[in-house]
């Protein structure tokens, strides 16, 4: 159904989704922040509601009537034939992502109202938080790579502002800068890919790009291959794949809603969204999907193992996110982008739920984050949080009938179909995920082990604190059942549909998950002091694990090298050698020459006349010879 003049009706909600946050931000910054900082969140919550409503409308229309459009809205940069423009693209993929961002984002906004209630940077937090919300929406709806890059960088900026929200803490400042720089290093690849695509295709709109790709009219195949690899590098930066993952665990310095929304549900998935969005480009490049699968699998296992050894609740969840991003990348590598997106959505729900539960626990303690030593046996004093946490944990482990089961087993199915090391990795990942989440569940909520403080002074948070968590954990339970709807939605945007689940795959997957649960049960409840004892027995191993198996020192070394190089260049060479000798060396040399000349003018009349005679002789000689 289209408005006269060919503009689809769906454009109005799409524009509303973008304009609402912009208006809320402007209103909030220029009017409320100076006047009533404590009220800044009101227009923002209103805009979240509007966005959620429009998102649901868009998803339903796309699902029911298969509508969608890709319309350029305005010119951005124009230079004769060369031009880059803003535009909106609504299709299956973007509407699914929009829905997930709107719902999860909205709920976390609500939850943040209470969590940040008495934070002195309240209005600054909400403005930055909503700026992120806007940039995520923009990222999902953009119709060209350059526009996507604009919102991509805005998410980087808002993550810098939000991680560094409590900027008086030095660790928060360092984490914020580290996050921004790592994203920038990833974006280096994205920027180059943009330039290459512009050079080869002259335009970065998905519509025209993929049409010429399909038609095989590619001027420079190697360049396109390089662009594909660079896009993957950008995705690694944003979605925390190995080696650019180390910023995500440190990003936990930010307030919990930030960790929940950005560093679990939405922002870090932007990289996966980028890979899925450019699937026609990436799919065609030989060797790239295999590499993505390898990197994804390795990251999943690597982060999973680290998650199993961490003590801080939010750090465990951070590594779990890295691991699940690895799983999504693994899915893409197995040429199953639909599974990746499906897992992205389910992961968004249960990971957000887990983070909010951890947030409630920490909030009860009055600290930014809680440690395993301080908790234990909380099921008695925080039953509701325990329920939500358990639901989300089961979903994460991929146990039937939870959402995680459907998305993870779809990926497992593809992995088993691909066979070889992929199958093994699929199973291992399932087991490792189940292990670390149930270890956390048992150690936090079940019988306080002697080393823990116990559930004494914990209490349930207020209504605003629990209702969003409940919704999210229910989502973690039920979202999986919509997988058929998902595959039809995604197939509409040119992404191959979800595979049907065979019973063999379900059995194997559940077996792996149960193995992980059993191991966690044995180690966490069977031997309650085990988790603490092995750390005393092997301090070196503990420190090595704490440094991410050597990755952190390596990163620190690289940073130090760049700084030293800058020091050598900036101070050493530029100031002390080049400037002092080559540039400021000339005047003293001239002065020296002048001094030398002065000795000649001795003042004696005879010397003068002697020099005169010499000059005359030279002139005469010259005259007679020339």
């Amino acid at each position, binding site marked *: 159904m289209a408005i006269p003049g060919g503009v689809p009706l769906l454009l109005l909600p799409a524009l509303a989704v973008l304009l609402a946050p912009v208006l809320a931000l402007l209103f909030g910054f220029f009017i409320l922040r100076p006047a009533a900082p404590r009220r800044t969140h009101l227009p923002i919550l209103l805009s979240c509601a509007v966005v959620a409503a429009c998102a649901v409308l868009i998803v339903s229309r796309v699902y029911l009537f298969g509508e969608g459009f890709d319309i350029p809205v305005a010119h951005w940069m124009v230079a004769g034939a060369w031009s880059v423009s803003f535009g909106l693209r609504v299709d299956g993929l973007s509407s699914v992502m929009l829905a997930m961002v709107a719902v999860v984002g909205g709920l976390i906004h609500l939850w943040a109202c209470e969590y940040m209630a008495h934070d002195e940077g309240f209005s600054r937090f909400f403005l930055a938080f909503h700026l992120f919300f806007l940039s995520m929406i923009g990222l999902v709806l953009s119709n060209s790579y350059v526009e996507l890059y604009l919102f991509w960088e805005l998410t980087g900026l808002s993550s810098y502002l939000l991680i560094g929200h409590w900027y008086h803490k030095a660790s928060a400042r360092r984490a914020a800068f580290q996050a921004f720089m790592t994203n920038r290093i990833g974006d280096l690849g994205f920027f180059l890919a943009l330039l290459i695509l512009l050079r080869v295709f002259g335009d970065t709109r998905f519509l025209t790009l993929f049409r010429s790709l399909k038609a095989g009219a590619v001027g420079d195949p190697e360049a396109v291959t390089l662009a594909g690899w660079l896009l993957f590098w950008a995705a690694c930066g944003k979605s925390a794949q190995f080696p650019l993952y180390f910023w995500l665990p440190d990003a936990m310095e930010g307030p919990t809603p930030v960790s929940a929304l950005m560093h679990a549900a939405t922002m870090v998935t932007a990289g996966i969204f980028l890979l899925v969005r450019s699937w026609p480009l990436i799919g065609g490049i030989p060797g790239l999907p295999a590499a993505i699968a390898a990197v994804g699998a390795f990251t999943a296992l690597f982060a999973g193992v680290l998650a199993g050894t961490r003590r801080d609740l939010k750090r465990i969840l951070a590594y779990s996110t890295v691991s699940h991003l690895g799983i999504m990348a693994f899915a893409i590598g197995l040429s199953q982008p639909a599974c990746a997106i499906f897992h992205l959505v389910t992961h968004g729900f249960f990971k957000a739920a887990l983070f909010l539960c951890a947030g409630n626990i920490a909030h009860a303690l009055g600290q930014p984050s809680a440690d395993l030593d301080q908790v234990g046996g909380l099921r008695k004093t925080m039953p509701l949080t325990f329920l939500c946490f358990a639901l989300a944990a089961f979903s994460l482990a991929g146990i039937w009938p939870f959402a995680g089961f459907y998305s993870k087993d779809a990926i497992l199915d593809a992995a088993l179909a691909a066979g070889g090391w992929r199958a093994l990795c699929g199973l291992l990942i399932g087991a490792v995920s189940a292990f670390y989440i149930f270890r956390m569940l048992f150690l936090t909520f079940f019988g306080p082990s002697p080393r823990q403080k116990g559930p004494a002074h914990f209490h349930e948070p207020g209504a605003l604190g629990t209702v969003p968590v409940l919704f999210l954990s229910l989502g973690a339970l039920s979202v999986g059942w919509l997988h058929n709807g998902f595959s039809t939605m995604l197939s509409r945007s040119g992404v191959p549909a979800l595979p049907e689940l065979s019973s063999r795959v379900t059995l194997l997957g559940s077996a792996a998950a149960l193995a992980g649960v059993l191991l966690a049960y044995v180690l966490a409840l069977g031997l309650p002091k085990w988790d603490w004892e092995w750390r005393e027995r092997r301090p070196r191993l503990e420190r090595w694990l704490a440094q991410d198996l050597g990755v952190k020192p390596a990163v620190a070394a690289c940073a130090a090298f760049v700084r030293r190089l800058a020091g050598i260049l900036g101070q050493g060479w530029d100031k002390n050698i080049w400037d002092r000798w080559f540039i400021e060396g000339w005047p003293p040399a001239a002065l020296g020459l002048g001094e030398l000349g002065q000795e000649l*003018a001795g*003042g*004696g*009349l*005879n010397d003068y*006349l*002697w020099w005169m*005679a010499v000059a005359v002789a030279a002139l005469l000689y010259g005259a007679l010879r020339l």
Partner: protein
Amino acid sequence: MTALIYSTTILLFFLGLAAVVLRRQLLAMLLGLELMVSAVNVSLVYLAGLFSDAQALAAVLIIIAVAAAEAVVGLTLIIDLREQGREADCSALRELKG
């Protein structure tokens, strides 16, 4: 004959020049100057005769007059210097240098 005249004038001239350049007393240098001018006059007179050119002879007379004026100026400066009690000698003229 011309060669003889040329060599005498060149010789006389460079003797005068040597006097001016090498001697330290100012009066001796002044004499050197006069010697140079007179050497030139000798050759000029000879050439005037050779080319039977009256102008050159007039020139010689004027040159003699000018040389006299020059000597007067030189002497006044040297006398001025002596009045100040300073040696009429090159080594005395060392203040201005650098």
